[in-house]
């Protein structure tokens, strides 16, 4: 059975930002159905049964997350994490700018399911166009009675506020996001308590990614079995892969979870430029350890990619061909992480900048043999020793390339120059 796009269907052909167009495509029917026929618990059950796993990167089962909220009478909040900032990821931006009502419908459904009194969209600050689109769509949805008081006469109230972030990568981490949303510094905090118990303003809070929430209307409309029928048993559903790097057609590709890496790169993204070979692939954005040409048959789902030694993350596939200097790539990523660490935990604050300094020196031909020993020891000193997983993420690519491409680091240090130049000029 050929896969039909779900989340991106109509994008590029229709103006789905227009409420009328969205409705003509069946939009808001899931919401109407839920409010009329389903109890909140039924919606939670459907999402649980669907096997939907969070699309923000961690892959945590969405229904399970919703069921953690304590039933203690305190007000609950729903927060949509739209702070898409993982290097290489641009799928949420697409959904926000071109399919805002799908997201809004997903938010209202999720809020209804967990009985949230208020929802927030924490939007990446740079998404100015997305902000305008969302505001317009929200106004339409409010006018049409899909958002606001007594939605569709059901007695359920929900207001959605769009909050623009200020540009910190770490605000994509949920506790950092919540702190920022409350006006504090964007810094992760100790867990537990988890946001489900003490989140926004100390209240039970669900934080879900844009793509995750965009799946919800379809699950409600078509049922959990349909959703499960797509992709592998443990990671079902459609997935948008943001492909970038050395491919002929970079872009967003919606495919079933579990699509093999090679199929994504060569069939959908147009393969590599003539004469080039795959050197490394980051399957889950800048935080993910590199896969090599030996891994091209890996199915792109949470479990398979983890088994291959990396992580699916947000599904941002960055392809590096044989003209890429691995040391330089590691350095570019290291600089990003050195700038984006929130700076709380010692190993991350100091480690990320140390790694960047060493890589910068090696890349510039000033490396020393001892540097490699230090570089090899730092990931172990940084990973798993901090409040949030940023520190681990910052050394993912480095660690993997120190295993797969150690010779390139050595060559840089010994020759004081990059050996990839020869490939480039070939």
């Amino acid at each position, binding site marked *: 059975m050929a896969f039909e796009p779900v989340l991106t269907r109509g994008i590029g052909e229709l103006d789905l930002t227009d409420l009328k167009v969205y409705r003509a495509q069946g939009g808001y029917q899931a919401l109407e159905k839920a409010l009329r026929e389903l109890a909140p618990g039924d919606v939670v059950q459907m999402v649980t049964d669907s096997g939907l796993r969070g699309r923000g990167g961690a892959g945590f089962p969405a229904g399970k997350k919703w069921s953690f909220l304590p039933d203690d009478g305190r007000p609950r909040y729903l927060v949509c994490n739209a702070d898409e900032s993982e290097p290489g990821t641009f799928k949420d931006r697409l959904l926000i700018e071109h399919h805002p009502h799908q997201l809004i419908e997903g938010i209202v459904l999720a809020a209804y399911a967990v009985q949230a009194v208020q929802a927030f969209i924490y939007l990446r600050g740079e998404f100015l166009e997305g902000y305008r689109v969302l505001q317009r769509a929200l106004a339409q949805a409010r006018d049409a009675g899909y958002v606001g008081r007594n939605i569709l006469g059901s007695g359920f109230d929900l207001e959605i506020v769009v909050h623009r972030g200020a540009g*910190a990568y*770490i605000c994509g981490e949920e506790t950092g996001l919540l702190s920022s949303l409350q006006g504090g*510094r964007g810094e992760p*905090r*100790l867990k537990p308590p988890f946001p489900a118990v003490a989140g926004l303003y100390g209240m039970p809070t669900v934080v879900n990614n844009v793509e995750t929430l965009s799946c919800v209307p379809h699950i409600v409309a078509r049922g959990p079995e349909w959703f499960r029928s797509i992709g592998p048993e443990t990671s079902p559903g459609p997935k948008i892969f943001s492909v970038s790097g050395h491919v002929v057609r970079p872009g967003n590709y919606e495919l079933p979870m579990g699509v093999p890496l090679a199929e994504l790169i060569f069939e959908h993204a147009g393969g590599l430029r003539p004469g080039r070979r795959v050197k490394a692939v980051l399957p889950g954005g800048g935080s993910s350890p590199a896969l090599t040409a030996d891994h091209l048959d890996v199915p792109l789902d949470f479990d398979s990619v983890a088994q291959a030694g990396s992580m699916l993350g947000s599904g941002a596939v960055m392809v590096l061909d044989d003209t890429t200097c691995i040391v330089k790539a590691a350095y570019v990523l290291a600089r990003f992480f*050195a*700038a*984006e*660490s*929130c*700076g*709380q*935990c*010692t*190993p991350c*604050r*100091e*480690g*990320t*900048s*140390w790694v960047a*300094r*060493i890589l910068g*020196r090696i890349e510039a031909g000033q490396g*020393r043999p*001892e*540097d490699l020993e*230090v570089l090899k020891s730092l990931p172990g*000193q940084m990973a*798993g*020793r*901090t*409040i949030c997983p940023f520190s681990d993420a910052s050394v993912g690519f480095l660690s993997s390339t120190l295993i797969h491409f150690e010779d390139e680091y050595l060559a840089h240090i010994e020759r004081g120059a990059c050996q990839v130049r020869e490939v480039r000029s070939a």
Partner: protein
Amino acid sequence: MSGERVSLTIDGRAVQVPPGTLVLDAARQAGVEIPVFCSHDQLDPVAVCRICLVEVEGSRKLVPACSERVREGMVVRTDTPQVAEARKSVLEFLLINHPLDCPVCDKGGECDLQDLTYQYGPALSRLADAKMRKPKAVDLGPFIVLDEERCILCRRCTRFDHQVAQERTLVVGQRAHEALITTAEGVPYASVFSGNTIELCPVGALTSKFYRFRARPWDLVRVDEICHGCPVGCHIQLHFRANVEGARLERVVSRPFEPIDDGWLCDRGRFNYGFVQSPERIAQPLVRPLGAPRGTLVPTSWEEAFRRVVGRLQEVLATQGPQGVGFIGGGRLTNEEAYLLQRLARQVVGTENVDHRVAGEAAASLDVAPGRITDLDRAAVILVVGAHPGQSAPVVDLRIRRAAARQGALLLTLGPVDPELRVPHQFLPAAPGHLADRLEALAQSLAGGGEGVPPRVAQELHEREGLLVALWDGREAAAGRALAAFLQTWQAQGREARLLVVGDQANSRGAEAAGLRPDLLPGYRLAADPEARRQAGLAPEPAAPGLSTQAMLEHAVAGRLGFLYLVGANLVETFPDRALATAALESEAFVVVQDLFLTETARLADVVLPAAPFTARAGHLTNLEGRVQATGPRSTDPAAGLPVEAWTDGQIFEHLGEALQGRPLVAGAGELATALAAAGLGSGTFAGALPVALLHEASDGSPTPSGSGEGLVAAPLPTIHGGGGTSRFDRAYGERRPLAAVVYLNPEDAQRWGVVPGDRVGLEAGDGVVEAEVQVTRRVMAGVLGVPRGVPGLAWNRLTGAGRVRVRGRLLEEVG
């Protein structure tokens, strides 16, 4: 529940602790040391430094001991290679950018980073790159200089500022390796608690403006002391350094004492110490040459000075009798010195004219529901009457902030000016002289009535179960009686009540208890009680009833008091009627002043005796809760190396006593201790308190508005950094905390008098004019002018002594 225990093992040692205990504290109890930087007993855990990582069985990753709570059956290991590696690793990270300036760092020798590096850290650095350079001397506020390179971003300082001080001025700025400690919006870190961050800092990043580069910790001689700055009585340690000139007091640090200070100090207590070695100290006795006008003083010897004092005292006794002699002073004296002074007056001179109240007739205690500072920790309601705890009892204010902000206590303030509290509270305006009315209404509201009490307050007071703690500034006798009645009503409803009275000076309460009042003998026994007098070795009837400070000044002006002896009492600055104080000093009376500095008052004296500072004396102080605390040992007078010949106040009293009666004032230290114990001032005990019946209506110039009339009633406000003596003559301190001559007006009054914020105005009272800048604030109730006390150039007591104050338009800057 209270007996419940959780069992766990740490490094194989079994330990049982209450549920909720942090692994770090459980380890401490088990005798296992876990290193920390960011963790602190008084601050919420953040677990950011990561030095305290330990192994917990069943946990995949290392766990921070400072934030992890114990669980039944938990198995913790701190002695494994993995933990050792993690500690070494964190230290390596902290050191890569940390400068190696330990040899010149203030913290060198008492630095946690240094100590833990020796103990757990790597011996060599693997850093091949240059260390990051950052600013080395950033002025964060008046007293704090930040060395950004040394900072390890443990956030103790910012957490103190947010969680303890509730101020939120200090923040972390930037992020990643560029993160730094700074202030919100770049405002100065001017909290009155800023100095605590220096002690909290585990490295040498936050340094004291005054101590910076002054000494090495191992060269310092440490002397335990009680802070003499205010009646809270925080425990401090004085650090002296010997040099060729003698000993110098280099810094004051806290000596944590949970029942009072929790280890915190205010900046007045911590930084206002330079006066002890000020070059402005009076170096030797001074006398006014015969026939010279007042204000002329020439140096003389102690012998000559005493000869003049004793000679003139005997002349006045011969002509006017004992009632022609008066002694004023005491709020800064120790209990012992206060006792000796009243003994000198009563036993030797035979006069009852003694008073410690140099700033108006305030009570320093009240015998109703005696409270302790720690009562604030469990208060359901806190009622602040007239007092400004942030200014006059700062460290107590920290407990108020915590109770209100973190424990949900209802905080009410009552008086003409809402004190500057950093936490949510309800202000109940009450005009000067009418605090009692408001308190009576509050008492009636407890019974369901109470006109003029906001319904929400009445309801809250009705519903709140538990302890009510009242804080009173001891002013307005009627307010004291009404407050007593209010507390008794509260108690009658089966609820607990406690009272704390914030005295004017550090040892007002000790002076009161020691009998430095015309109506009281030591131990709160009535001066008019023949039996009490007999026991004190006095004649059954006083020669004449004793005079209060105000009455002594009036008698001096009227020529009926020919000898006035002032001890540490700068009345020109502190007495609420400046005109009267000045007139008395300029009268025919012979004026002796015992002080450290040539104050406005000392300048007008006939004889000035140089007193030694608190560092030179030993004795006891009684804090606002009545706790009798031993001051430090008789250590040193840091100015002694300079050509200063000062005596302690007690030494001067003893010498005078002996000179007058030919034998010692007391037979010895033993007799003195016995006498003080008999007065309820035994070391380590709690003093008695003033009976409600002895609350007299103020006879001084305290603001009691007469009739209606045009104009404002001046309400004096205590000023933490101000004062008549030690702060004014501590130049370095004064320069860091300049005090502006500012008065406070309600917006309504500002409009009525046509002034806008920032205007310089003339304030007319009596026949004088005082100039000041106006600030407009709702903290001041309508009809009231808030006037800070102790601000140089703002003669507050010209405004309080002479009825209502008129605002004479704005004084325009002259152009051209």
